[in-house]
């Protein structure tokens, strides 16, 4: 753990804020990322179906392996194709 001194006016919280989130999903595309653990696909398939029932566009992605972070190319592809991401199923 390193401590850095705050160079700012200190008018905002120290935890890095989550990236700006949308007000609603309608009109957006939701990315569903399967992190490649067994049985996760059944759970994610159901989320996918429910989203599509509501008329929300989805795209599916698969991490090549559960043991490493998603490769850069995949992360960049996801970043350009969707606006929000659900990742699962970690157990």
């Amino acid at each position, binding site marked *: 753990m390193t401590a850095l001194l705050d160079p700012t006016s200190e008018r905002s919280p120290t935890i890095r804020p*989550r990236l700006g*989130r949308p*007000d609603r999903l309608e009109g957006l595309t*939701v990315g569903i990322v399967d992190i490649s653990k067994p049985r*996760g696909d059944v*759970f994610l398939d159901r*989320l996918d179906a*429910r989203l599509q029932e509501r008329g929300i566009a989805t795209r599916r992605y698969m991490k090549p392996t559960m043991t490493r972070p998603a490769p850069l190319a995949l992360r960049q592809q996801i970043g350009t194709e969707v606006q929000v991401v659900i990742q*699962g199923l970690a*157990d």
Partner: protein
Amino acid sequence: MVVATTEFIEAAEAQAKALGTDPACVFIPHPVQDRTDDELRAMADTHFDAIIAMLLKGN
């Protein structure tokens, strides 16, 4: 946001502390490996609203 089982709660907290981030998480009951397909789909239904809420502003 991330969907994980309750086994992950401590790990998620530790990682959040280490990385200084506060990722949105929904925890579902552990284990999942021995659930039937119907049980998994039911869990997805139960937690659907919570998962959507985590994607949106204000959560």
